[in-house]
């Protein structure tokens, strides 16, 4: 059989376990990753020369992080691995990327998208001020660079990561001014039956909470963020929020970590033509997948948080399952693989139930989108306000997210909608009275991230104008 060209995008838990399974079955996949080192965001490796040990970096997840890194190190000679490589387009079974200033084009027969997630953010008035960071970003600052994002940090949003990162900051010696959670504590109790599907993890979460309290960190549940106070030149100076009882408080700080769980990175799947479905519980568009991770497009698979937001443990298993799907599609199914598939499915069932419990315990506060003041910035990149977007909906009748994007530019800036498109859709839905799924989903566009024009431009060497239109031949690997 002619060897199949297999391309994996992303070297986090899903991508590494996927690659490992394929290598174990005699295949040699190509693995590209945007980071300099493997591990993804969750098990991100610190730069060479840093000394902190696994326990300091990854806490209770140290063994899993080490196991994943060790697996990758062993796999490394069996892979065609491109680190520091950013994919920007997909077309006709060719992925377009660039690595350290040079274009790279990769042809594939099978594509495994393990593209991970970014923070899901609900804007708050003033969040464009310097010193506001995504919650995941705050964690990366600590994990990857051993720095705190500020001298006094407030953590605001919802989800388990809020408490985890706050306690990691505390442990590392940073000043944590407060943790402000939009979710009411009672939600955690009603979600408890699902959360107890992973009782040790739930217990650990409670310990984090107790630890924060013991250190005198101000904790508030069921809050509504009102404003990030500060100035355009010095940045964040305080957070104003409404407590659950409606009274308004302010907490001084010079940094804010803001996050509401995660949203999947799906732009490449979108360009590959994969179908999406609306998930009512999380109010997000997710890839349509079969139970092994096959997308609606033949020979394109997805795993990890880019497919379903279930965390790193589930990502490792889903990555392996996607590899099993690919092996089946190559007629390499074995009884051992079938047995392994069954085991992974039963483990994933528990992890999925737990993830659902988390979504219920720390719900996305969709109702806040309707309450954002007209002068709240929705698009940080281009400073477009909720009021401008609402006027687009009312004056131009733009009830669909891509149409509203064309008129308002929300979703068109340098982040390409990663941090605003989902909120823009909520604002449109609230302003128009249409359900969120009718407002729709912002389409992915190439380039999925900005790329330097120098990649495809050449210096004009001759007065003849057509010469300057020539492109250097990129390296094509097939």
């Amino acid at each position, binding site marked *: 059989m002619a060897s199949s060209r297999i391309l994996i995008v992303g070297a986090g838990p899903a991508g590494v376990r996927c690659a490992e399974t394929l290598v174990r079955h005699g295949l040699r996949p190509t693995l590209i990753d945007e980071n300099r080192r493997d591990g993804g965001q969750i098990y991100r490796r610190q730069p060479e020369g840093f000394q902190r040990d696994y326990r300091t970096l990854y806490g209770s997840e140290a063994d899993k992080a080490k196991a994943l890194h060790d697996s990758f190190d062993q796999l490394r000679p069996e892979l065609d691995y491109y680190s520091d490589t950013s994919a920007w387009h997909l077309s006709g079974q060719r992925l377009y990327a660039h690595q350290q200033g040079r274009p790279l084009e990769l042809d594939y027969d099978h594509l495994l998208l393990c593209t991970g997630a970014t923070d899901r953010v609900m804007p708050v008035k003033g969040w464009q001020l310097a010193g506001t960071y995504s919650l995941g970003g705050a964690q990366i600052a600590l994990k990857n660079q051993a720095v705190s994002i500020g001298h006094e940090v407030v953590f605001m949003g919802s989800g388990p990561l809020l408490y985890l990162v706050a306690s990691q900051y505390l442990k590392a010696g940073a000043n944590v001014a407060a943790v402000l959670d939009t979710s009411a504590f009672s939600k955690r109790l009603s979600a408890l039956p699902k959360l107890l599907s992973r009782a040790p993890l739930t217990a650990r979460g409670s310990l984090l909470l107790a630890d924060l309290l013991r250190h005198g960190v101000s904790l508030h549940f069921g809050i509504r963020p009102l404003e990030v106070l500060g100035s355009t030149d010095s940045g964040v100076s305080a957070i104003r929020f409404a407590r659950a009882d409606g009274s308004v408080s302010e907490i001084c700080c010079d940094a804010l970590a803001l996050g509401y769980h995660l949203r999947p990175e799906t732009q490449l799947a979108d360009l590959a033509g994969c179908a999406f479905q609306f998930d009512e519980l999380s109010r997000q568009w997710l890839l349509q997948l079969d139970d092994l991770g096959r997308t609606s497009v033949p020979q394109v698979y997805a795993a990890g948080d880019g497919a379903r937001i279930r965390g790193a443990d589930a990502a490792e298993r889903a990555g392996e399952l996607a590899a099993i799907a690919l092996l089946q599609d190559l007629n390499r199914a074995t009884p051992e693989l079938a047995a392994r598939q069954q085991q992974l499915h039963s483990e994933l069932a528990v992890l999925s139930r737990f993830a659902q419990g988390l979504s219920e315990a720390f719900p996305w506060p969709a109702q806040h989108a309707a309450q954002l003041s007209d002068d709240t910035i929705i698009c*940080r990149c281009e*400073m477009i306000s909720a009021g401008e977007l609402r006027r687009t909906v009312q004056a131009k009748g733009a009830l669909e997210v891509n149409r509203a994007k064309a008129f308002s530019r929300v979703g068109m800036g340098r982040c390409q909608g990663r941090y605003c498109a989902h909120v823009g859709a909520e604002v449109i839905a609230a302003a128009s009275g249409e359900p969120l799924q009718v407002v729709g989903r912002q389409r992915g566009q190439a380039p999925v991230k900005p790329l330097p024009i120098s990649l495809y431009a050449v210096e004009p060497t001759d007065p003849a104008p057509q010469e300057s239109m020539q492109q250097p031949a990129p390296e094509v690997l097939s």
Partner: protein
Amino acid sequence: MISRFVRLDEQHRPRVTLQVNGQPVDALEGDTLMVALLTQSRHLRQSEFDSGLRAGFCLMAACQDCWVWTRQGERLRACSTPVSSGMDILTYQPEAAWPVHES
């Protein structure tokens, strides 16, 4: 000290010196440009769309808020670019100026 980021650990790395807006700046080997800049300043760049200063947002190469420039005009994402000795960085885009949009 007027800084945004605070170093908590890993401070025994070799020093490197780079130029930022023509001034020498000390950093540590393994720092990203973002950390090198924000441990001695409160911002990375000027927003093109208002008078605000920006200091990055996502730190995972997704939001593009942390762009800075080399003196040659090459754009760098500060959160994912490691420092190296002798870098010549500008926190404003060379040879570009446009009116700021204030709504």
